[in-house]
């Protein structure tokens, strides 16, 4: 797809999509959406970039090393945050009960660990989806078939 219109539009629109994705990720506890949906939106922006320019250029933006680091790291982050509950003397993934400060309702920092969890999920989902897309479309060696 070497179309100038597509390139120009997507160059313009990709940052906004990404911003929206991040917004969805970070406001998961306030508005519809969350880590998963937001991660998917971020991923689709990157995929859009990859499609409209070319796949090599796209995959250079998110290297294999980084994406696999994000994939594993996101999941590990989730588990580690979950352990906070146990460390605070309550159960796994415990939030308010464990005494995590919640903040004021309606604000960005108002949900204790959910905010942190969403970050992990968002990073993992975005990187996984991108890796999957590139491996499916033959951009690189295919071993990204896990979620």
């Amino acid at each position: 797809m070497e179309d100038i219109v597509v390139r120009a539009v997507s160059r313009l629109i990709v940052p906004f999509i990404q911003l929206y994705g991040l917004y969805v990720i970070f406001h998961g506890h306030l508005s519809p959406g969350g880590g998963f949906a937001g991660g998917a939106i971020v991923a689709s922006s990157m995929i859009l970039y990859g499609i409209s320019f070319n796949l090599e250029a796209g995959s250079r933006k998110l290297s294999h090393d980084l994406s696999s680091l994000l994939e594993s790291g996101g999941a590990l982050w989730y588990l580690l945050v979950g352990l906070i509950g146990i460390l605070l003397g309550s159960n796994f993934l415990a939030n308010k009960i464990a005494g995590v400060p919640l903040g004021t309702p309606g604000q960005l920092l108002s949900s204790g660990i959910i905010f942190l969890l969403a970050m992990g999920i968002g990073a993992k989902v975005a990187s996984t989806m991108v890796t999957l897309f590139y491996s499916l479309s033959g951009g690189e060696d295919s071993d990204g078939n896990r979620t």
Partner: protein
Amino acid sequence: MEIVLKLLNNYYYFVAMVLFVIGFHTMLTHSNLIKKIIGMNIMDTSIFLFFVAIGYVRGGRAPIIQEGAGYQYINPLPSALILTGIVVAVSVTAYALSLISKLYAHYGTVDADEIALIRAREER
């Protein structure tokens, strides 16, 4: 007549079941693997529709708490379940698609019947 009325009252369930059957049927009868996966997605979304319909309260609002409002909210639990369900469905889809592209590399086709034929010929 009674049945029709019942259906009218529960049309979401009815549509969900119809979609489930279509998806199931697509999955079972089509030999094209990609078609099978699309069928799987239809089947899954139909079940999610079913779930959403269970949680729906007529006149209720989305469960987003706003200060000082005494709304009636719909049941949020099914939404949480479906979110998880969608995650699962997408990951299965992605995994299946990557398998399919590998199968294509080995067999040159994405048709289950043709692959079975090739296998049978090889083993003979």
